[in-house]
């Protein structure tokens, strides 16, 4: 070794990383390494200077300077550095502050590394007290080097002082290390290591967002130091000695413990589970370099996957192993740009101690330069430099991620985890609280919490009435009601209700269209002291009954056209219109009943996860708290006009129902449209007669394309869903200035709204508008899974408390107990668990993150759908979006599948529905037309008669018998021969007939003495592949080939009939449908005609057969008359047992043993395998269920055949042979993320994917992106996620946008298509055939449409107009022209 002094050397890997950081931020002291050594003893400054000169001379790192040429940095040694010590006398400065300031300022001073890499000052602070200020550039040093340097200086100084003669030793040079690293670059070991780090960090895309914040390129940083104290430090050391923790060295063990705590901390404050932490490896490869000063360390990542169930010890055990792997792969030059960018946090366990200087008591301090690498959020250093026995932890926090307050608080968060570890390391890492649970609640809207003085809503209304009796309160169509009149009318109704026995304890259900009657009823019920239970007009009778009985309502108040739909024998029903004259005779004065704060005001039903709606009880004090707060906050007054246009059963509507009436304002009522979607909002906008509006964000999207510049709306209150910034911005811009948009958050359980903010385009620049701060008398908390409060920024579940809280669900104490919990820290005792995830942002506002149950799991990853949506809406051309996880029903675990107790149909058959006896819907329906179906079947004589009917045509055969070699077709052939018919046997050789089956065929035809031909095509494999893709089986393709080829032979040989061996079950799979038997006077010839029509269509369907075989014979429709198909089993009914006896006797049929199944065809199992994989059930399930239903097979026989074992290896071999690639490879679960988006239709999906790839990890990127005209909404104006989840994969694969039905006819056609095609939602532009529609489905769809419309549309029209839009248009035109006639 030994390097020429003037040689320019490149930078090492570690140096390059530092250099790159500094280049980006040239003006900030990123890499100043600064120590102060406070020495309690006299220092001779001359000797000090001389000694340090010796240090310089003996330490090449200190004589290294850096330069850059054409962007390439290099380093070289200078021969000598003339050092003169800077000495400052601080003894006259009495204040510590001044010294501190000086040190701080000097620490920040940049080092000019082209001249000198260090800065040394000796300060005299008192007589016999000195501070040695040592500043080095990180490029030439690391923690161990600092100690080496210090010790070297110490020993030189001591030698000089004591006069011991010393020459600077010949220490190994850092330059040698640089060369070593260079020379190892291409060594095998090095390459293996680099590959290791590459692989390790390949998939780490997302860095944890500490306290929800992401980096923004700032270098500013704050250091906060935590002193663990003697006790904790001792405990840690003691634990490190225990066998379950003990590693190779105590330091390594302690490092592992701190790392475990660090991973835990990062997980807890970010929620992220895949975590990489950078840690410096000291990297001194051999003893040679143990005494060398230089930058040896390399920061390399340790990667851990946190398990939710982890305890400290279970995590520690994985960390220990990870550290071992980390150590064995670290080595000079291991780090790469990729490995460096895999982490944003660092844990630095510093094993460095500074002894006393010249044996004077010395205190070492490590100073921070207020800046650090902008790629790091947090750098944490654990050290005990003064050998005090107390660990210190320095947290360097990025000033963007950590506010000053948070930087000061975060050490406590870490220490809380550490204390929990010390107390019990077997506890879950999620359990300990990061912050004290006794901290006060977050601040509220306004300054102070106001003590509530109760005032009822009615009092508010009466005040307005008294003030301005003649101003208009309601405007409904042509009707105008003044406050006075409204009050009188409601008083009259109240008197009437009271007479009917309604009192303070009653509940009255209100089932109304939006109308003035509804508002009068609400006021009247309240005036009697009772509670109202609103139910919207569109609710089904069952639900109304449920609500009435569940709420304990004694009376249903309604309107006549609504009441007629509900049959309610057990309750008083009052038709307010019918009783009009009686009501109008009632007194108009007030009942004078006072509403009590704790008595019920209303019960609102919201959908429950169990499927039954749950009734939320809201008291008068809750209602008043909200309404009067809203009046004040939104500033509503007698000029305010609200449209009542949202569902009365929706909690959001409470605002519109009552706020204008206590403000002296006006309500414009828009009655709902009864048919099709409710378009009242559009009417509201067009009318332009309101200035305040309350709606959902999804409603806001309907403002698109409307002229809003002239709108009078100035106040928009949004609730019910999260509000996107994009949307708010667009809306705000669309209106003329002065519009205010308020984002109101609140579950029904906390009375309409309890957290609110006003949208502010200057502040709200993230994707979602925060929900803001709690309203008065309400508090909000964010808690983790262990009900601990979480620190600001951290995501947790939102809990609410305060006056607005419901006292629970009516008649559901269990659910009430689950959702309303007691706690020790809230101001009120009860907390409501919202199920919403939220965090508090830096500004102190609550941010809604998403539904807790919207966290989905995909391939082991926990995914927040809202997070994907938020990122997606940031894409410029996307206006709105919704992401769902489609869990296809194929994933029903095998052991959860049940079979129909009658026919064996599996429960995962699409839309299968079982009754309480486990009988399927097909069996149940069949009972209703079983008798009629019987009429379709005939007997042997009729068969013989039919097949002999065309004998005079001079053909040598009566019929072709399709012989597969299986039992059914063999039986057919044998019977036909036995009947004395002249038969030509036809066997399709598809290339996969088993040898034994072929033997059967050959032997049988010989034994029966019939002529026999084989059909063949070179395209068979292609047909199989096409069939597997289109129908998930091989049989469809094979059958069509058989029909095509046999028809051709029949035509050539003038054979009039082809006899199939289809089982009766297969008739229902391929020919017959329920609808064919609907006719009361069933005519089987009509059925035959329909089947024939379907057969014609069948040959027109585009598939591989049509493409590859000669199908010209079907162009002339006469072929269908010349060659007729006859199903043998339509005429003959035989049990399996009978059949087998007959076969053995007459045909010498033997069950093939070389297919491994009861089939004779080797490829058959490929079809079954693919069908099961793609659809979840066997393609035989359906036809066999029919065989059972028709008595052709028993349920057990059927299930036994269906459950036969499949030889997977053979299946995969055949798939490969025919060239079929499975749709769903083994590794792919059937679940996938699907993103629906509205906006520019022509966005390249690729662009969206690339856009998302930069923001979220790959497993969160949806696999399907589907454009929709509009995101579909539920009745309440929320995104219809359930509907979106129900869109099938075939529909998703279509290039057409999803458009929901737009009118009644389209709605009807969609309903029918969906029933027949077994889909849940169909876009009006989706193609019938692509949806899986075939000729049989065409029969069913057409029959159903004809039934509904009472008209006879021909079968083929559906293929001519294969979309709902086109077909509906055709229906409409047909009907119109009929009317005109």
């Amino acid at each position: 070794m030994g390097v020429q002094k003037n040689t320019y050397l490149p930078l090492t890997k570690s140096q390059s990383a530092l250099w790159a950081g500094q280049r980006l931020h040239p003006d900030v002291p990123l890499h100043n390494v600064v120590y102060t050594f406070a020495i309690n003893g006299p220092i001779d400054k001359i000797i000090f200077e001389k000694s340090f000169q010796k240090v310089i001379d003996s330490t090449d790192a200190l004589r290294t300077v850096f330069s850059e040429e054409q962007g390439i940095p290099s380093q070289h040694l200078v021969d000598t550095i003339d050092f003169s010590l800077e000495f400052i006398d601080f003894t006259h400065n009495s204040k510590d502050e001044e010294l501190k300031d000086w040190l701080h300022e000097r620490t920040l001073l940049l080092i000019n590394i082209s001249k000198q890499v260090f800065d040394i000052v000796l300060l005299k602070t008192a007589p016999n007290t000195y501070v040695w200020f040592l500043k080095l550039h990180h490029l030439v040093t690391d923690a161990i080097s600092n100690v080496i340097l210090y010790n070297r200086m110490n020993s030189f100084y001591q030698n000089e002082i004591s006069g011991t003669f010393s020459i600077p030793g010949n220490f190994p040079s850092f330059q040698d290390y640089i060369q070593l690293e260079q020379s190892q670059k291409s060594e095998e070991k090095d390459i293996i290591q680099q590959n290791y780090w590459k692989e390790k960090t390949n998939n780490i895309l997302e860095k944890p967002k500490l306290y929800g914040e992401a980096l923004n390129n700032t270098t500013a940083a704050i250091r906060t130091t935590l002193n663990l104290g003697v006790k904790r430090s001792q405990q840690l050391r003691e634990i490190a000695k225990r066998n379950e923790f003990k590693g190779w060295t105590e330091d390594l063990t302690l490092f592992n413990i701190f790392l475990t705590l660090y991973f835990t901390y990062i997980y807890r404050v970010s929620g992220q589970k895949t975590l990489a932490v950078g840690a410096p490896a000291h990297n001194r490869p051999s003893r040679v370099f143990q005494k060398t000063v230089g930058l040896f360390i390399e920061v390399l990542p340790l990667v851990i996957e946190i398990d939710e169930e982890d305890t400290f010890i279970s995590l520690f055990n994985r960390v220990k192993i990870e550290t071992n792997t980390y150590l064995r792969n670290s080595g000079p030059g291991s780090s790469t740009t990729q490995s460096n960018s895999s982490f944003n946090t660092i844990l630095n366990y510093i094993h460095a101690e500074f002894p006393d200087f010249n044996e004077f008591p010395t205190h070492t301090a490590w100073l921070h330069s207020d800046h650090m690498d902008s790629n790091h959020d947090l750098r944490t250093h654990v050290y005990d430099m003064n050998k005090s026995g107390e660990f210190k932890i320095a947290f360097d926090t990025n000033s963007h991620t950590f506010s000053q307050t948070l930087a000061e608080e975060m050490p406590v968060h870490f220490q809380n985890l550490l204390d929990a570890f010390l107390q019990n390391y077997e506890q879950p890492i999620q359990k300990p609280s990061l912050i004290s649970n006794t901290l006060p609640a977050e601040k509220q809207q306004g300054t102070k919490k106001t003590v509530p003085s109760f005032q009822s809503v009615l009092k508010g209304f009466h005040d307005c009435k008294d003030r301005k009796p003649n101003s208009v309160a309601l405007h409904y169509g042509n009707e105008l009601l003044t406050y006075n009149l409204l009050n009188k009318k409601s008083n009259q109704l109240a008197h009437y209700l009271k007479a009917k026995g309604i009192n303070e304890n009653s509940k009255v259900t209100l089932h109304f269209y939006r109308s003035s009657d509804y508002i009068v009823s609400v006021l009247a019920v309240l005036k009697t002291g009772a509670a109202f239970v609103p139910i919207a007009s569109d609710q089904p009778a069952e639900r109304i009954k449920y609500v009435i009985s569940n709420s304990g309502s004694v009376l249903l108040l309604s309107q006549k056209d609504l009441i007629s739909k509900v049959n309610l024998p057990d309750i008083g029903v009052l038709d307010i219109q019918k009783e009009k004259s009686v009501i109008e005779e009632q007194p108009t004065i007030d009942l004078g009943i006072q509403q009590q704060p704790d008595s019920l005001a209303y019960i609102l039903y919201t959908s429950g996860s169990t499927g039954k709606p749950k009734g939320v009880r809201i008291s008068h004090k809750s209602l008043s708290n909200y309404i009067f707060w809203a009046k004040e906050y939104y500033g509503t007054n007698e000029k305010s006009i609200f449209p009542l246009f949202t569902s009365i059963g929706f909690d959001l509507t409470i605002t519109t129902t009552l706020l204008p009436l206590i403000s002296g304002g006006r309500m414009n009522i828009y009655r709902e449209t009864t048919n099709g979607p409710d378009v009242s909002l559009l009417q509201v906008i067009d009318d332009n007669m309101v200035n305040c509006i309350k709606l959902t964000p999804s409603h806001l999207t309907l403002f698109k394309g409307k002229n809003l510049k002239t709108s009078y709306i100035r106040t928009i209150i949004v609730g019910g869903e999260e509000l996107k910034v994009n949307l708010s911005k667009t809306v705000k811009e669309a209106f003329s200035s002065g519009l205010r948009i308020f984002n109101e958050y609140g579950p029904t359980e906390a009375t309409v709204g309890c957290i609110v903010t006003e949208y502010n385009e200057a502040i709200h620049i993230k994707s979602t508008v925060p929900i803001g701060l709690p309203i008065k008398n309400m508090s909000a908390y964010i808690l983790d899974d262990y009900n601990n409060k979480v620190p600001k920024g951290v995501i947790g579940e939102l809990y609410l408390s305060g006056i607005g809280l419901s006292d629970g669900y009516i008649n559901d104490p269990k659910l009430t107990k689950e959702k309303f919990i007691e706690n020790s820290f809230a101001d009120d005792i009860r907390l409501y668990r919202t199920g919403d995830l939220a965090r508090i942002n830096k500004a102190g506002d609550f941010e809604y993150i998403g539904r807790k149950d919207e966290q989905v799991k995909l391939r082991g990853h926990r995914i927040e759908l809202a997070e994907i949506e938020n990122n997606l809406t940031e894409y410029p051309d996307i206006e709105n979006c919704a992401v769902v996880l489609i869990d296809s029903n194929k994933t029903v675990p095998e052991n959860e599948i049940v079979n129909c107790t009658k026919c064996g149909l599996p429960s995962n058959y699409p839309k299968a529905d079982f009754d309480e006896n486990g009988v399927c819907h097909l069996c149940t329906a069949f009972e209703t037309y079983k008798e009629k179906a019987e009429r379709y079947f005939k007997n042997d004589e009729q068969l013989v008669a039919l097949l002999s009917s065309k004998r005079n045509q001079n053909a040598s055969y009566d019929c072709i018998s399709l012989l597969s070699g299986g039992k059914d077709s063999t039986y057919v052939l044998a019977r036909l021969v036995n009947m004395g018919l002249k038969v030509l046997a036809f066997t399709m050789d598809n290339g996969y007939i088993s040898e034994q089956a072929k033997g059967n065929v050959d032997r049988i035809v010989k034994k029966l003495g019939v002529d026999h031909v084989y059909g063949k095509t070179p395209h068979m494999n292609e047909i199989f592949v096409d069939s597997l893709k289109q129908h998930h089986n091989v049989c469809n393709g094979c059958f069509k080939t058989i029909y095509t080829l046999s028809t051709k032979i029949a035509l050539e040989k003038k054979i009039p009939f082809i006899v199939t061996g289809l089982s009766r079950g297969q008739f229902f799979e391929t020919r017959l449908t329920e609808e064919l038997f609907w006719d009361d006077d069933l005519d089987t010839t009509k059925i035959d005609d329909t089947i024939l029509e379907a057969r014609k269509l069948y040959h027109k369907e585009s598939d591989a057969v049509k493409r590859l075989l000669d199908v010209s014979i079907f162009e002339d429709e006469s072929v269908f008359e010349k060659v007729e198909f006859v199903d043998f089993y339509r005429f003959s009914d035989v049990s399996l047992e009978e059949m087998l006896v007959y076969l053995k006797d007459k045909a010498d049929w033997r069950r093939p043993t070389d297919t491994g199944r009861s089939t004779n065809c080797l490829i058959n199992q490929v079809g079954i395998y693919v069908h099961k994989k793609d659809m979840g059930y066997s393609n035989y399930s359906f036809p066999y269920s029919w065989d059972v239903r028709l008595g052709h097979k028993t349920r057990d026989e059927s299930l036994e055949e269906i459950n036969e074992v499949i030889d997977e290896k053979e299946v995969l071999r055949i798939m490969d042979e025919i060239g079929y690639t499975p749709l769903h490879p083994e590794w792919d679960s059937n679940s996938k993320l699907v993103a629906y988006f509205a906006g520019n239709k022509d966005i390249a999906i690729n662009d969206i994917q690339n856009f998302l790839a930069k923001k979220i990890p790959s497993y969160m990127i949806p696999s399907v992106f589907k454009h929709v005209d509009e995101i579909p909404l539920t009745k309440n104006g929320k995104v219809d996620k359930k509907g979106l989840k129900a869109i099938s994969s075939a529909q998703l694969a279509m290039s057409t946008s999803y458009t929901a039905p737009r009118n009644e006819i389209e709605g009807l056609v969609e309903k029918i298509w969906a029933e027949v095609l077994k889909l849940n939602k169909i876009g009006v532009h989706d193609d019938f055939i692509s949806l899986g529609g075939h000729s049989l489905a065409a029969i069913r769809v057409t029959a159903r449409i004809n039934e509904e419309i009472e008209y006879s549309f021909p079968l083929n029209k559906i293929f001519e107009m294969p979309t709902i839009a086109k077909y509906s248009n055709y229906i409409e035109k047909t009907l119109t022209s009929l009317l005109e006639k």
Partner: protein
Amino acid sequence: MKKKILNYIKANLATESIDELDIYENLLESGLVDSIGMIQLVLFIETEAQIKVAPEEMIINNFMTVDHILKFIASKQNSEEKQV
């Protein structure tokens, strides 16, 4: 093997230069070898003894003294032979 390991430790790993090292000397407790040194020792043994040391096996019980190391190597070689 014994000699090779002892020499390797003396020449490359020991934090201070030493003359004598016997196979019963605790490598770790005395601070003779640090954790990076232990990893280098693992790598050295892997090459010399043609075995693979899994991260889970890098524990004190296998590496406390040269004697432990030799026993560990023997057991590894045994089990690997059995697997072949």
